[in-house]
C-alpha cells in the first residue's frame, strides 16, 4: 500500500538504474494521491497514478438516499465547487420527475454555479502558483474569494457546503441583502482584477516554469476524452454551457475561452480568463433577473421508473450523471462521470521526458480535484 523507494536492477544507459519515487501521498503539491515516478537521474521515464485516497464510494451511498437527501452526498463530490454538481443533480431529477422550474430559479442557479466556478478557479490559480513555491498570489486570490464566500454564507448559512440547490428549485429564497453582497463581490473583483491580471499572467516565474511544459496535442484530447479547461487549452472549444445550453445559459452573452498551444501556461490562462467570463455572466444575470417569488416547485416523493443522462459544465469540465429510477423514493443507480477522473490519466502520457521538478507544475496545471477523482 505504501511502499518505499525501490531499486530496479536492470541498468539503463549510462545514467545508471531506474529509481521508483513515490510522489505523494503526503506531499505539499500532490494532495491525497500517490504518483509513482520512474526516474532516470532527473528525467521522468514513466509515471503511474495511484488515486483512491479519498474514496467514499458515493455511487453506492446514493442508492441509500432519497432524491432530496442525496444533495448532501452529491455536493461533497468536490467541495471546491459544490454548486455545479448540485445544479446537475437538480436538472437530472427534475427531468425524471417531469417538473419545470420557473425562470427566476434558473437564473439564480446560474448565479450560484458561476459563483462556484469563480471560487474554484481562484483556488486553482493560487495552487498553480503554489506548485512553484510562490505564496503571495495564493494570498491575493484567497482574500478575493472571501467576498464570494460572504455571499454564500449570507445566502445559505454555510461558506462552502451550501446544499442550496435541491431538485425542484432552491432551498432558500434569496433576499435583497444577498444580491447586495454579490454586487459588492463583483465590484471588488472588477476593482482588483486589472492588478491581479498584470501580476498573474506576466509573472516571470510562472511564464518561465509553465511555458512549453506538458503539451497536450489536440488529438490527445479526443483520444483521452479530456474535458474542461484542459481540453479548451488545447484548442477544443467544448463547453457544455455554450454547446448544449441548460438552465437558461442561452440568454447570456459570454465567450468560451480557448487557447491553441496546449501547454501548462495555456491551461493557466484559460482558468484565469474564465473568471472574467463568469463575472460577465453574473452581471447579466443580476441585471436580467426575472420577477417572481416562487423559488421551489413541489416535487413528488416517489419518481416513476426511468433513466436520465445529464451534463453540466462544472469548474473542472463536464460533470455527467447517469441516473436510473425504479419508481422508489431514491435513485436505483447513479453513475457519476467526473472530469478529474478523465483528465488525470493524461499525466501518464505527457509527463515522461520532463524533469522531476516539472511534475508539480504539470500536475497543478491539470487542475485536479481529488474529491471528484475518487468519488
Amino acid at each position: 500500500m505504501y511502499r518505499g523507494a525501490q531499486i530496479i536492477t536492470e541498468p539503463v544507459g549510462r545514467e545508471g538504474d531506474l529509481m521508483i519515487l513515490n510522489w505523494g501521498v503526503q506531499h505539499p503539491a500532490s494532495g491525497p494521491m500517490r504518483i509513482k515516478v520512474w526516474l532516470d537521474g532527473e528525467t521522468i521515464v514513466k509515471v503511474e497514478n495511484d488515486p483512491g485516497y479519498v474514496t467514499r464510494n458515493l455511487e453506492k451511498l446514493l442508492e441509500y438516499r432519497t432524491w432530496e437527501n442525496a444533495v448532501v452526498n452529491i455536493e461533497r463530490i468536490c467541495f471546491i465547487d459544490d454548486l455545479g454538481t448540485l445544479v446537475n443533480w437538480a436538472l437530472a431529477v427534475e427531468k425524471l420527475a417531469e417538473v419545470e422550474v420557473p425562470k427566476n430559479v434558473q437564473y439564480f442557479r446560474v448565479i450560484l454555479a458561476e459563483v462556484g466556478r469563480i471560487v474554484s478557479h481562484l483556488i486553482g490559480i493560487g495552487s498553480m502558483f503554489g506548485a512553484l513555491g510562490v505564496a503571495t498570489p495564493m494570498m491575493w486570490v484567497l482574500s478575493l474569494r472571501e467576498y464570494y464566500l460572504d455571499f454564500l454564507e449570507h445566502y445559505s448559512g454555510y461558506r462552502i457546503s451550501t446544499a442550496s440547490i435541491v431538485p425542484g428549485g432552491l432551498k432558500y429564497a434569496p433576499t435583497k441583502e444577498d444580491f447586495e453582497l454579490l454586487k459588492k463581490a463583483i465590484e471588488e473583483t472588477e476593482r482588483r482584477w486589472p492588478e491581479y491580471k498584470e501580476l498573474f499572467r506576466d509573472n516571470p516565474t510562472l511564464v518561465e516554469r509553465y511555458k512549453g511544459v506538458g503539451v497536450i496535442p489536440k488529438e490527445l484530447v479526443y483520444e483521452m476524452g479530456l474535458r474542461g479547461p484542459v481540453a479548451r487549452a488545447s484548442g477544443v472549444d467544448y463547453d457544455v454551457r455554450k454547446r448544449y445550453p441548460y438552465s437558461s445559459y442561452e440568454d447570456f452573452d459570454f465567450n468560451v475561452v480557448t487557447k491553441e498551444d496546449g501547454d501548462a501556461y495555456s491551461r493557466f490562462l484559460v482558468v484565469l480568463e474564465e473568471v472574467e467570463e463568469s463575472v460577465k455572466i453574473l452581471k447579466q444575470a443580476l441585471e436580467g433577473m426575472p420577477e417572481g417569488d416562487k423559488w421551489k416547485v413541489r416535487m413528488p416523493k416517489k419518481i416513476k421508473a426511468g433513466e436520465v443522462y445529464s451534463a453540466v459544465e462544472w469548474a473542472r469540465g463536464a460533470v455527467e450523471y447517469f441516473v436510473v429510477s425504479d419508481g422508489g423514493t431514491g435513485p436505483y443507480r447513479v453513475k457519476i462521470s467526473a472530469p478529474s477522473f478523465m483528465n488525470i490519466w493524461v499525466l501518464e502520457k505527457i509527463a515522461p521526458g520532463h524533469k522531476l521538478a516539472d511534475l508539480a507544475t504539470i500536475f497543478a496545471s491539470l487542475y485536479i480535484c481529488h474529491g471528484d477523482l475518487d468519488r
Partner: protein
Amino acid sequence: MLTKFLDFFGWARANSPWMVHYCSGCCSLEILALMGPRFDWERYGFMPVPSPRQADFIVITGLISRKVLPVLLMTYDQMPKPRYVFAIGSCAFDGGPYYDSTSVVTNVPEILPPDVFVAGCPPTPEAILDGLLEMKKIIRERRDAKAETQGTWREILKKELEKNPLLAQQPFFVGG
C-alpha cells in the same frame, strides 16, 4: 530550575506550532482559508511545513478513507515528540455524511485520539482558529498528547508495516 527551563520550551513551542502539510479530506479547504489573509493564522505562529520531521502537530482534515489511514499513521509516526493531533470535521469523528460507507474509517478517534476536536461539516475558520488556540494552551502547559497513551494506532501501523519487510527493517519507522 529544570521545570522553569522546560516551561520556557513549552512557551516557545506554543508560539510557533507547525503543521504537517497534509490533507486527507475536504475540510482542508477551510484550513486553506485559515491560511489566507482574512483569518491569518500566522499571527499566532501557525505555519504549514512539508516535512513531518519538523512538525509539531498534524491535522486530521475530516475524511479518513481506509486507503489513506496507514499514510496518516505513518506521517504521525514520523513526527518528533511532543506531537499533537488536531481533528476537524464530523468525518473525523464518526464518518459524518459517509457514515455508511465501507471505504471510510468511521472510528478515527479510537485509532488516533485527537487532543482537540472541532465539529462541523466543515467547521468555519473561526471555529478552527478557536480550537487551535485551545491546542496552544495544551502545548504551553506541556501536557501529553492523548495519542501517546491511547488509541490503537500503533497496532494498526505495525500490522501495516509487517506487510512490507523493507519498511519494517527501518529503525525509525517502528512506532516510536
